[in-house]
C-alpha cells in the first residue's frame, strides 16, 4: 500500500511539472544558447561552439567575480553563523526581554533588500553618512567605504551579514530549546562553569542545527546580488563584482545572451558540486545520529 509509485507521483506531479517548465527547460535552454551567438531580438542563432566559454574563461572580470564570490562566502558564512549562535545564547539567557530581542534581530531579515541597500549606501556615504560622522566624532577619518578597493567588498559583506544573521539567531534559539535541561542541571551539580557547559553540552547538542544553519547561510551568501547591484554596480573596477551580478550584467546590460548563458552554465556546475557536498554532509550527519 505504502510504497506505491503512482500515489507518490500524484503528489509530486504538480511541482515536478512546474519545475520542468520553469526550471529544467530554461536550464537546458540556457546551456543551448551558451553555444550560440544570439542577441535575443534577431531570429538568427549562429552556432559558435565553445567560443562563449573561452571568452568567459579569458575574461579578467569573470575571475575577479569568482574570487570575490569565494571571498564573500568564506567570510560571511562563518561570521553570520557564529553571530547567530552567540546572540541566540545571549538572548536565551536574557530573561524577560527575550521576545523583544528575538523580534529586533529578525527585522533585518524581513526588510527588503532594496530598502536595506539604499539605507546602507546612505550610511556609508564618506561625508554625510552616519558611519563616518560617528568616526569623525571620535576623531577618526573614515574611508570612502564603497569606493575604495580595500573596503568596498568588506562593506558589502557587512550588509550581507547584517541581513542574514538574524535568521540564524532564530534557528539557534529553536535548537537551544531542544537541548535537555537536565544536562545542565547535572553539569551544575558537577560544578562546571558556564563556559564549560557551553563547550561540552550546548555546542555538541546543537550539531544538527549547525549543519542546517551552515547550509542555509551558504545558499544565501552564494546568491549575493541585490546589494551589489544597488550599492556599487560591481565597482570600483569590479572589486565587488560577484558571479550572479556578472551573469546579470552580461545578459541585461550588455545583451550578450551567449556569454551570459555560458557564465550561467558555469555557475550551474558550481551549484551542482556544492549541492552534492551539502547532501553528503547532511547524509553523514543523519547516519551519525
Amino acid at each position, binding site marked *: 500500500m505504502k510504497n506505491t509509485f503512482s500515489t507518490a507521483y500524484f503528489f509530486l506531479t*504538480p511541482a515536478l511539472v512546474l519545475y520542468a517548465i520553469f526550471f529544467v527547460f530554461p536550464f537546458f535552454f540556457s546551456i543551448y544558447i551558451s553555444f550560440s551567438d544570439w*542577441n535575443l531580438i534577431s531570429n538568427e542563432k549562429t552556432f559558435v561552439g565553445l567560443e562563449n566559454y573561452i571568452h568567459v574563461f579569458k575574461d579578467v572580470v569573470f575571475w575577479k567575480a569568482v574570487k570575490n564570490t569565494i571571498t564573500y562566502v568564506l567570510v560571511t558564512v562563518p561570521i553570520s553563523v557564529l553571530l547567530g549562535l552567540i546572540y541566540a545564547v545571549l538572548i536565551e539567557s536574557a530573561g524577560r526581554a527575550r521576545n523583544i530581542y528575538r523580534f529586533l534581530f529578525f527585522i533585518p531579515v524581513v526588510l527588503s533588500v532594496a530598502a536595506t541597500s539604499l539605507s546602507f549606501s546612505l550610511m556609508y556615504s564618506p561625508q554625510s553618512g552616519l558611519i563616518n560622522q560617528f568616526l569623525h566624532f571620535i576623531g577618526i577619518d573614515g574611508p*570612502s567605504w564603497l569606493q575604495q578597493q580595500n573596503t568596498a567588498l568588506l562593506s558589502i559583506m557587512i550588509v550581507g551579514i547584517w541581513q542574514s544573521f538574524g535568521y540564524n539567531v532564530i534557528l539557534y534559539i529553536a535548537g537551544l530549546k531542544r537541548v535537555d535541561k537536565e544536562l545542565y542541571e547535572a553539569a551544575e551539580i558537577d560544578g562546571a562553569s558556564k563556559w564549560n557547559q557551553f563547550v561540552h553540552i550546548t555546542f555538541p547538542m546543537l550539531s544538527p542545527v549547525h549543519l542546517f544553519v551552515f547550509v542555509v547561510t551558504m545558499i544565501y551568501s552564494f546568491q549575493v546580488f541585490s546589494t551589489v547591484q544597488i550599492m556599487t554596480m560591481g565597482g570600483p573596477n569590479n572589486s565587488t563584482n560577484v558571479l550572479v551580478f556578472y551573469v546579470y550584467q552580461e545578459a541585461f546590460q550588455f545583451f550578450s545572451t551567449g556569454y551570459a548563458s555560458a557564465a550561467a552554465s558555469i555557475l550551474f556546475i558550481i551549484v551542482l558540486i556544492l549541492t552534492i557536498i551539502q547532501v553528503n554532509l547532511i547524509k553523514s550527519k543523519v547516519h551519525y545520529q
Partner: protein
Amino acid sequence: MKKAKWVTIFLIVSLLVISGCSSQENGSSTNSSPRENKNTTEDTLNENEEIVEIKFTHIFGGSKGEAINALVEGYNNSQNKVVVTAEQVPGWYGGLLEKLQALAVSKQLPDVTLSGLEFSNYMNEVMPIVPAQDFIDKENMDVSDFIPSMLVLGQDENGKQMALPFAISTPLIYVNKDHFKDAGIDFTEQPQSWDQIRKWARQLSDNDRKGIFFQMDFDTWMFQTLVESHGGKYASLDDKQVSFNKDAGKQVLQYWVDMVHEDRSYPLMNGDQAAQSFQNGQLSMLVASTGNLTQIADGVSFDLGIMLLPEEGRKLPAGGSSIYVLASTPEREAAAWDFVKYATSPEGSALVAEHMGYMSVRESVIKEDGILSDYFRKNPLAYKTYRQLEDIVSWHNWPGDTGPRITKIMMDEIQAAFIKEKSVDEALEDAASQAKQILGW
C-alpha cells in the same frame, strides 16, 4: 486510493483557478488608466472615429514623472483621436534600454519611447524604429524652430533625422557660494581654466569639506566633455580610431587623480552621495547635468550659484534623451508621431524645461519674449545654461550594440586609476586596447 487521485486533481484545478483569477484581475487594471483619460476626451468627441491608444515609455519618477504625466495629459486633452498612456521604467536610461530589449523579444514594444542619447546608435541600428525623417518628409514639416545644435542630436551619421530631441542637458558646475565667500574667492560665472577650478577646489577643501566632485556613475559623459574641451579627440568611427587614450585623455584623468590623491579636494564617492553632500554643505562644487537643477535648487539652504565650464576650447556633449517612434501599424505610428510632435512642440518643450529642469529644444521658447520669458526672469540660473548652447556636440556613440560594454570597460579603467590600482597611462591603454578588440578595429 481513488480518492487520492481526485483530491490531487482538485488541488491542481484550484491552482489553475487561482491563476485564472489573477489574470482577470490584471486584465481589469490595464484598462483602468486609459479609460480615465478617455472620459476626458470623450466629452469633446464629435466624430465617430476609432480612438487609437498608444503607449509611451519614459524613465522619470517623482517630480519629474509628474511633469511627464502633465505633458501626456495635456496631449490627451488637446485632441480626441489618440490616447497616450505613459509608463515609467525604473533604472534610468540603462534600465529603459533593458526593458525595451525584453519587450522586443516579446513583441510588446511601446509605440513611443524616450532613449538616452548615449544609446542612439543602438536604437537606430538594433531596435525597430521608424525614422522621424519619414514623417517630416511626408508632412513637409518645418523644423527650423528647433535649435540646430539639438536637432543634430537626433540624426544618424548621414544627417537623417532618426528621432527628435526631447530633454537635453549639458554639464554645469553647481556652486556653494557661501563656501566661496568663506574661502575669500570671488565667485564668477565664467571660470578661466580647468587649472583655476582645481586651485579653487584645493582652497575650498578642509577637514569637513571637499572642493569638487564630477558626477559620472553611469557613463563616460564627463570624460568626453573634458577630453574634448582639452582639445583631444575621443574616437572616430569613420577612421576606426580610438583616441581617448592620447595626450588629452591622459591629461584629464591625471587631473582628476591628482585632485583625489594630491590635493585631496575630490572625495571618492558615488553620485547620490555627492548630491547629498553638496546639499548638506559639505561639498563646494558639483559638476553635473543641468537636468538636476530643479531638484538641487529645491533642496539647498545656502546661496546656490551656477558656473559655466571654462570657455576655452569648450565642447559640451549633450546628455538627456531623444524621442522615438517604434514600428507598429500605420495608424499607431501616425498617432505616435502626433504625440512626438506635441512633446517637442514649443509648448511641450517649455513644460519639459520649466518643470524638469532640462533645456528646451525650441528657439521660440528661449528667445527673449518667448513662452518661458517669465520663468527665466524669475529663475535666472536656469537661463544661464543656454549661454553654453553653441558649444554643444554629440555624445559619442559606439557602433551598434558595443556601447554598453565599452562604456563599462572605460568606467572600470577610470575607476582603477582613481583608486590607484593602475597608473593613468596603464588604465587608458588597457581601456583602449579592450575597446579596439571589441570593435574589431
